[in-house]
């Protein structure tokens, strides 16, 4: 992703909208997720209380983020976890490779990690002759088919079982075609058990890292995360720097919010809390544990008092599930690692507005995401802000490529608009002109774009002001 301009979003959207199967798969799955979340958070006032706690915990984290990261580093180091810092994804990738090389390791098993997707880790390691195996069933499926996740929680949700059956049959040796989910599952279990058995290094993400104790918390249902972090002799965990929390006591409410929002579960099958490498006398667990803390633009996001709320995100995915746009176009159409509402605010800030700013426009600002977000990120507000930033309309413009859409004609146009609305006389003249000629403005340029899916408004022969005057109502 080194080019300046991003993927062709418009084209992707049209393609997705025309894919009936895709739309059916997403509609079914998202409906299901919404329902399950509702069941677990059935008591509205309790849910609201819990979300307030989640919001407060994350804001407290942001208020002392550097101190907490330093504490996390200190505690981890004391427990024998080696901490590395990476400014960029390139640096993080190289750190992973260096650790692999130090062990002459060529086989890596991976638990699900969105940060590793952000790093483009798989491609990087494969270029360096390392076998990378995704072990989460959904990730395994899409890796076989050389695809990217279309959802941050259920990465293969865009595929139905016929498609998955076909992938297994085509890509895995000696695998007969079967659509039975139990059988597909058993095939994956058999193959991946062998991979766990032989892996030299296991890699995982981190859901929460506790500064107080130096503990890495991972939640999952399958057990592949526990396998990846326990069987191989070396474990590497990668995390975005916003994943730290202050204390162990913060974990229970955050956990409730995460599992309830993500999959409508009271708790996942496993909550795996790792505080140290294998100690003398212990018989299993990795002898070496590494933690890579990735910045990749996050520290700059923290500098903006409004946009920093983006860093509260716990990657639960529920804003995707509730988004009318995501549900119709699916995850791939966005063309970036993080799809849906969270992607629309995160990608433009990480990748820059020029490349990803268009994402912020793909929203009707319906507020559904803000209503369900477990840490109460006001996503629509941030979307509006990013739209404005593209034109840098008088702001401090801290966002990368801020103001890249600014153009003279538009600036003059808005200045004129401002003048008209602050000077009553000019306003009156303007109104007169528009009521006569408004309908005759040719539909070219931006107006053509604008009226493609909208009917152009009809200008009334008389302005509201005039009507009010004629009625004899006193103007306050």
């Amino acid at each position, binding site marked *: 992703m080194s080019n300046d301009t991003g993927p062709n979003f418009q084209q992707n959207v049209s393609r997705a909208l025309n894919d009936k199967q895709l739309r059916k798969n997403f509609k079914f799955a998202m409906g299901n997720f919404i329902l399950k979340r509702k069941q677990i958070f059935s008591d509205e006032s309790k849910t609201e209380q819990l979300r307030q706690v989640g919001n407060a915990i994350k804001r407290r984290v942001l208020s002392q983020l550097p101190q907490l*990261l330093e504490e996390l580093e200190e505690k981890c180091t004391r427990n024998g976890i080696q901490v590395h810092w990476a400014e960029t994804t390139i640096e993080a990738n190289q750190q992973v490779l260096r650790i692999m090389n130090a062990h002459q390791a060529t086989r890596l098993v991976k638990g699900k990690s969105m940060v590793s997707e952000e790093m483009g880790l798989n491609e990087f390691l494969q270029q360096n002759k390392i076998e990378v195996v995704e072990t989460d069933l959904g990730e395994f499926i899409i890796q076989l088919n050389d695809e990217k996740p279309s959802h941050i929680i259920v990465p293969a949700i865009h595929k139905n079982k016929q498609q998955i059956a076909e992938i297994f049959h085509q890509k895995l040796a000696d695998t007969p075609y079967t659509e039975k989910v139990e059988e597909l599952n058993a095939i994956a279990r058999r193959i991946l058990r062998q991979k766990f058995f032989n892996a030299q290094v296991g890699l995982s993400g981190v859901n929460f890292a506790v500064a107080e104790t130096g503990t890495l918390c991972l939640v999952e249902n399958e057990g592949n995360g526990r396998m990846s972090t326990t069987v191989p002799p070396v474990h590497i965990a990668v995390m975005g720097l916003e994943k730290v929390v202050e204390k162990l006591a913060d974990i229970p409410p955050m956990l409730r919010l995460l599992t309830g929002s993500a999959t409508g579960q009271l708790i996942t099958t496993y909550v795996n809390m790792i505080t140290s490498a294998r100690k003398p006398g212990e018989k299993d667990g990795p002898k070496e544990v590494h933690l890579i803390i990735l910045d990749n633009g996050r520290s700059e996001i923290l500098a903006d008092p409004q946009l920093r709320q983006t860093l509260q995100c716990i990657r639960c995915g529920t804003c995707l599930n509730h988004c009318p746009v995501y549900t119709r176009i699916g995850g791939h159409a966005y063309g970036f690692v993080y799809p849906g509402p969270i992607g629309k605010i995160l990608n433009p800030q990480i990748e820059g507005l020029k490349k990803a700013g268009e994402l912020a426009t793909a929203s009707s600002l319906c507020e559904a995401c803000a209503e369900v977000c477990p840490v109460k990120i006001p996503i629509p507000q941030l979307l509006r802000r990013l739209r404005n930033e593209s034109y840098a309309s008088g702001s401090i413009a801290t966002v990368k490529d801020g103001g890249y859409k600014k153009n003279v004609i538009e600036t003059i146009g808005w200045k004129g608009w401002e003048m008209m609305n602050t000077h009553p006389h000019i306003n009156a003249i303007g109104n007169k002109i528009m009521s006569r000629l408004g309908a005759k403005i040719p539909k070219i340029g931006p107006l053509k774009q604008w009226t493609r899916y909208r009917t152009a408004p009809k200008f009334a022969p008389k302005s509201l002001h005039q009507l009010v005057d004629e009625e004899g109502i006193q103007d306050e």
Partner: protein
Amino acid sequence: MNDASRAQILKRLHAATQQQPVDTPEMADLPVELLTPPQKIETLKAHMEAVRTEVHVVAARDWTKLLKKILKKRDLKTLLYAPGTPVGSEVQKAWAEEPERLPELVSYKDNIENFKEQLFDIDAAVTSTVGGIAETGAVILWPDEKEPRLMSLVPPIHIAILQAAKIYTTFSEAIQAEDWAQKMPTNVVLISGPSKTADIELTLAFGVHGPKELIVLILKDE
């Protein structure tokens, strides 16, 4: 390279929080209704059964009898256990009394490097737990030297022994009561059910990587 990155990142973060401090709202305590001991057993059982865990409530002195019954029904060859733990000792005693038709007892005799092959071939494991969480339905394991981490993960059947008195209403309560923050071990795991996935069309399938069956025996002192 690394130290420079660390310094740069921290510098930016410090500058960001100092120039524009983040306002932190007051945090209200979440209300909790503490459950009575029988309620705790009931709630934990209901939640865990809902995610397909087999839960039995049994008198403390009879638990090995029940364990034998459960195992015989399944016709297994090997059972991994942890000698030297209270649970392990009782298993050993019970097996000594009546070894026939029971799976052979195997212990985690060596480091994983030398035990891996055997471990991946074992049919079932029995472990202790340090407690349970009623509100969400989960058992808490603190693996240690005697009871290694992979016992509860690799064998297809995991049997977890839980003392009824060690069930807490909430996870928060467990953390506080046992002062976890002061003594976090290498690994803590909460387990609520058998391994599962819904990655294919959201259809639930069990035993994808970890145990296909989780059996919890809740021991009650009469």
